[in-house]
């Protein structure tokens, strides 16, 4: 088996004295799409913040493209090929749609994803390209955020809760883009609370619970009971 694109061993994370992650072992290979599911506070976002360098990871065992990157800064990881679509989209309000996309290529760019190919993926954005980034509807803003992440032509794209706060029909639109992105050979981690959506696009699943990996497997082999036990925890299951 070839070396994983990203691998963590025993990853821990803290907010002050509060420990949010307790030894996460994780790996993703080239071309794979992995869904990370789990309830609120399970540590999914903390995990993404750690591997993107937004949280300090000094001395931790994280390998990206075969190199140790524990303690690396967020901006240097972008240059190495990691891109993130942050939770809540986080578009820049003073920038237009097109400028929001262009800034995605600030640290790193390439030839696969350019303004043209992003506009092919999300045609509506071409129409709206001179609008303010935050003047768009929630779904369109999410498209900008995904496009912005792709503009750096990343080796690995992280998507944090891209369905959050959107109507089901819009979520469907957004997720239609995922196979198209996969078709270009992209490697993706999708963090989701919406289990069905996540299982539909993922090759493998990690379920997080209280800062630990409670379950891993492929969508086809995991049963519903296994997932709900891993998702809600045994006590919650016992109470139901």
């Amino acid at each position, binding site marked *: 088996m070839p070396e994983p694109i990203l691998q963590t061993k025993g990853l821990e994370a803290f907010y002050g004295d509060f420990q949010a992650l307790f030894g996460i072992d994780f790996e993703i290979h080239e071309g794979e799409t992995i869904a990370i599911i789990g309830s609120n506070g399970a540590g999914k976002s903390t995990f993404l913040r750690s591997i*993107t*360098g*937004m949280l300090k990871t000094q001395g931790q065992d994280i390998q990206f493209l075969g190199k140790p990157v524990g303690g690396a*800064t*967020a*901006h*240097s990881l*972008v*240059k190495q090929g990691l*891109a*993130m679509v*942050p939770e809540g989209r*986080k578009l*820049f*309000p*003073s*920038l*237009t749609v097109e*400028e929001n996309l*262009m*800034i*995605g290529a*600030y*640290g*790193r760019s390439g030839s696969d994803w350019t303004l043209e190919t992003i506009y092919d993926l999300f045609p509506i954005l071409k129409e709206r390209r001179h609008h*303010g980034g*935050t*003047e768009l509807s929630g779904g369109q803003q999410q498209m900008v955020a995904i496009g*912005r992440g792709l503009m*750096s032509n990343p080796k690995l794209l992280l998507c944090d809760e891209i369905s959050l706060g959107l109507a089901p029909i819009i979520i469907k639109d957004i997720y239609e883009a995922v196979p198209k992105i996969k078709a270009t050979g992209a490697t993706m981690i999708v963090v989701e609370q919406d289990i069905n959506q996540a299982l539909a696009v993922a090759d493998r699943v990690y379920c997080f619970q209280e800062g630990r990996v409670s379950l891993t497997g492929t969508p086809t082999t995991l049963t519903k009971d296994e997932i709900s036990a891993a998702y809600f925890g045994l006590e919650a299951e016992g109470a139901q």
Partner: protein
Amino acid sequence: MDWINAIVQGILLGGLYALFAAGLSLMFGVMRFVNIAHGDFIVMAAYGALLAVTFTGVHPLLSMIVVVPGLALMGYFGQRILLNRTLGDDILPPLLVTFGFSIIIQNVLLEVFSADSQKLQAGALETASIQIAEGLNIGLMPLLIFLSALGVIGGLQAFFYRTSLGRVLRATSDDQDTVRLMGADNAKIFGYATAIASAVVGIAGVYLAMRTNFDPSVGPARLLFAFEAVIIGGLGNLWGTLAGGIILGVAQTIGAQIDPGLQILAGHIAFLIVLVVKPQGLFPKMKG
């Protein structure tokens, strides 16, 4: 005619104030950082011009060739080495560190150059003027400064809206955290922002030295003028800052027309009135 003259001179003076203010506005916009030593940096640039002119004998305007890049470099490294350490959620460290700088700069200048008042001689430029009407003359120097202010603000505006670095600076102003996910290094971006702001401070300092007498103690008053122009104009809007500078300048010259002792006080009072009536400034930031 006296009053019209006062207003015209005030508008021109506003150009100088806008130059004072542009750097302050830019640094606050990008970093939410207020440099209390801003006025003292302007005075330092003025002394830099004085040194350049004294040693080389060139025309004061040419001293910008040295002063502007010199200030920009100082700004970049000062930000990266010292000021970046003070940034964070707490507003105390940047305020108190730059307040300390203010006192240090004033006293170093005092030791080196004494408290004597200085002025750069700009030759014919100083006395030349254009007569608009009987009793209404526009001095060439104030006009040059005003046009420079237009040029600097127009240039900054083009830089912010037309270049990749400008775009990142605007994005940083929106959200310094998320911009890191675009591959931007905050520490470096802040260094660039301060370098650009300091280059403008350099221009402002040379003009200050050419237009008025200066001594080591005049920095704080320049900080207050710059601050007032920024607040009157509305945060985050450079053209607003120019308008703020003009309003301040006109208030001062009208005050001086009533009684020479009222010049500065009239400017401060105009500022306080705007603050009470429209705390967001007259031209708050627009999107897009």
